[in-house]
């Protein structure tokens, strides 16, 4: 592993990689007798794009669910911004500044794009349910402020033309973009993307890559993503964790990972001798 990637530094293209934002220490996750994740440790640094790759069933999505607080590992610790994270519910993790998108799109199909993205602002709504219902006091002002943030994200992701379109009517690629918009609306410190380019054509993938890079560049958001498309992973990410059968088999820059023998074996198979 190169020394450079493990200390705060400035990348050749001018992005600042800071201190450790999140650290996974010896995580083990079991579902009954099945070990989904076995003793995995890695860290995510501020401002970096971190990828988790691996063959099907390697435990990538489980890992993401541990980070987002949806699964609680039986062993190991999650450290976030310098302190150990106690057992939390997912919404508490979200309040800490972690947002995500899902592998299988999880939007409100009957609602418009705008309303869907507005739900991402939920943690910023302070007024109670009665004030909201009566549109009284701070509620209206709060809605305006949240709408402003949302409109900037809509502009950023270039989805103005579908602002008022119900999500159910959108093609797959655009739904993925709306999911990203909703995650961004939460103004996350750490953005988790579960296969953001799955099922997309080349053009849609290129658009998505550009948005991921722009999000990282413009807002300084730290991104942790799972992706199958190796080309995308190698181009986008600063560091890559490789998983296979719930174990970590590689960790480093794309170049290091690409030349790692275990990784090659996991992806291409080992000849039977």
């Amino acid at each position, binding site marked *: 592993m190169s020394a450079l990637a493990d200390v705060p530094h400035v990348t050749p293209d001018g992005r600042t990689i800071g201190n450790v934002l999140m650290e996974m220490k010896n995580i083990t996750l079991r579902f009954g007798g099945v070990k989904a994740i076995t003793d995995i440790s890695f860290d995510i640094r501020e401002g970096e794009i971190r990828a988790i790759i691996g063959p099907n069933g390697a435990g990538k999505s489980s890992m993401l669910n541990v980070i987002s607080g949806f699964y609680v590992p039986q062993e190991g610790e999650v450290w976030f911004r310098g302190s150990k994270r106690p057992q939390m519910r997912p919404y508490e993790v979200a309040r800490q500044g972690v947002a995500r998108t899902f592998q299988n799109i999880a939007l409100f199909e009957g609602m418009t794009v705008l309303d869907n993205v507005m739900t991402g602002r939920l943690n910023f709504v302070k007024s109670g349910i009665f004030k909201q219902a009566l549109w009284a006091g701070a509620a209206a002002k709060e809605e305006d402020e949240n709408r402003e943030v949302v409109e900037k994200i*809509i*502009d950023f992701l270039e989805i103005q033309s579908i602002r008022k379109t119900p999500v159910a009517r959108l093609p797959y690629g655009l739904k993925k973009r709306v999911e990203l918009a909703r995650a961004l609306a939460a103004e996350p410190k750490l953005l988790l993307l579960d296969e953001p380019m799955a099922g997309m054509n080349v053009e849609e993938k290129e658009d998505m890559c550009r948005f991921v890079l722009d999000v990282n560049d*413009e807002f300084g958001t730290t991104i942790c993503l799972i992706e199958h498309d190796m080309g995308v992973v190698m181009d986008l990410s600063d560091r890559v964790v490789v998983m296979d059968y719930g174990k970590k088999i590689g960790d480093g820059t794309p170049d290091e990972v690409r030349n790692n023998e275990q990784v090659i074996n996991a992806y291409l198979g080992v000849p039977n001798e």
Partner: protein
Amino acid sequence: MNTAEVSKELVSIPALLDRNARTFGDSTAYREKEFGIWQSWTWSDTKVQVTNLALGLLKLGVREGDFCAILGRNRPHFYWAMAAVQSVGAVPVPVYQDSAAEELAYVLEDCGARIVFAEDQEQVDKLVEINDSLPQLEEVIYLDPRGLRKYDRTHLHDYNQMIADGAEADATLNKELDARKAKLDYASTCVMLYTSGTTGRPKGVVLSNRNVIESAKNSSEFDHLRREDDVLAYLPMAWVGDYIFSIGQAYWCGFCVNCPESADTLSVDLREIGPTYFFAPPRVFEQQLTDVMIRIEDASPFKRWLFNHFMDFAKDVGPDILDGKPVGAGKRIKYALGEALIYGPLKNTLGYNRIRVGYTAGEAIGPEIFSFYRSMGINLKQLYGQTEATVFITAQPDGEVRADTVGVPSPGVELKLADSGEVYFRSPGVFECYYKNPESTASTKDAEGWVATGDAGFIEKDSGHLRIIDRAKDVGKLADGRMFAPKYVENKLKFFPNILEVVAFGDGRDTCVAFINIDHGAVASWAERNNIAYASYQELAGHPQVLATIKTHVEEVNAQVAQDEMLSGCQIDRFLVLHKELDADDGELTRTRKVRRRIIEEKYDDLIAALYSDASEVSTETEVTYEDGRKGSIKATLSLIDATTHRSSSMKVAAE
């Protein structure tokens, strides 16, 4: 101050801006939808922005006579940039923002632009790519900073920062700006616009303040445009029409220019603004009509019946009511009912309920489409013009509107026809010259100021309206000496919703043949309704049922063409349906989507040869260019289809 004195002062765009800010500074000049809200700027705001930007340009060292290119979509900021560039005595050159890097390089090199206003990272990247071949390019000013954080800032400037810098300019710069503005007169260059280049390289057309302001004044009076009008600026800024509508007429009348949020949101923005003065090329109206018809097909039977009933009725009565002709009271009442039930809501959905004056031009519009809009009470008219005339050559006056003419000479325009049928005009809008191209200028404009349009046409004896047949140089002869005017037959075919584009060949040959492009939207919707499966455009275009439908269209047109004694030779003998859409990125169309006949003829010479052979199909490989400039190729086997032709109307009767 009397009127004569006022008009004497109004000899430049910056002078008009000063007048507007002084006399009705609180009226809205620009609107743009951003972050979901319509933002607006008054004429006073506009003047502040333009002045500050002009001061910023002075700080940057812009000299009088410099060319400043503008590369972006319709945004108020770019309209201000044009006025600011003019204020400092430089010349704005708007460029098509979807130009590929090499097209852009040609234009920037030709005019020697020192400054470029670029919209965003995409445009800046193009400039970076061609920078090495453009030694005279010095500074780039960008509007949208997104993605540009890491770029070298030595020659890259933020638009908003320029305005902020300009606001802090000292008295010397202000004095300099006033001096430069004072020097502008009717003869000074107002703008340079590149022709889209139907043939060969684009040419820079130099237009003076006289051209622009006189044309704007005359046309505004012709259509009674006023300050309360609203236009939607969505056509490319590099096109002369947008310059005249969104700057010339807007500054002259003081009406409001509305800029859409993005190219994709046009239909929503159109509906929200409801322009009173609107321009669109025929394909926009065609597209909308197709969309409406598709949605009506999906509506409930009762609604469909209601729609068809009232639209049929409107076709009889609507145009007469619009033209102010006598119509019976019963019919008027029924039309009013139709207005309440169908026409009104439909116009509202399309964003056309406030239109007082609507124009279409650039191509022939199908009579069906034209009458559809007019029957609903939309005052849609045709005009005929070109960049060299500062738009206006002829236009249809209210009450004299027909689908097949382009109207009478606009105010101040004289027309004459050469023996060959080519149309010549002379007007205050006649361009100064082609930039750095005296030969072309001399061959287009003679010493007396008559300009050859390059179009062949004739003037109807009864009405005095001009009718255009085709480009003069495309008009040829078949081998037996009969006249060949490809556009005439192509337009007739293009009026079918299934057909997007047609290119006919036949000059010097025995018969005519044609390439046809299907309209993907219309044909795909038809395929869906009839459960026809297809995987790609290519497969759809080659489907036997599609080919059969196109064949009936061709034969129907042949029957029509046979009626015309002069042009009966233009019937299509054999045709094929192309496996790809003709595309501006491949150089087959101009950026304004006009067919480049010669290029298509060269590129597909194998297909033309096959059409003139006995073969029944042909295999071909075609190079295609993607939007980002990469190239690929597609292979296809195309069917060559024979269509029935008629010898001529008299012969046919004899045969029967």
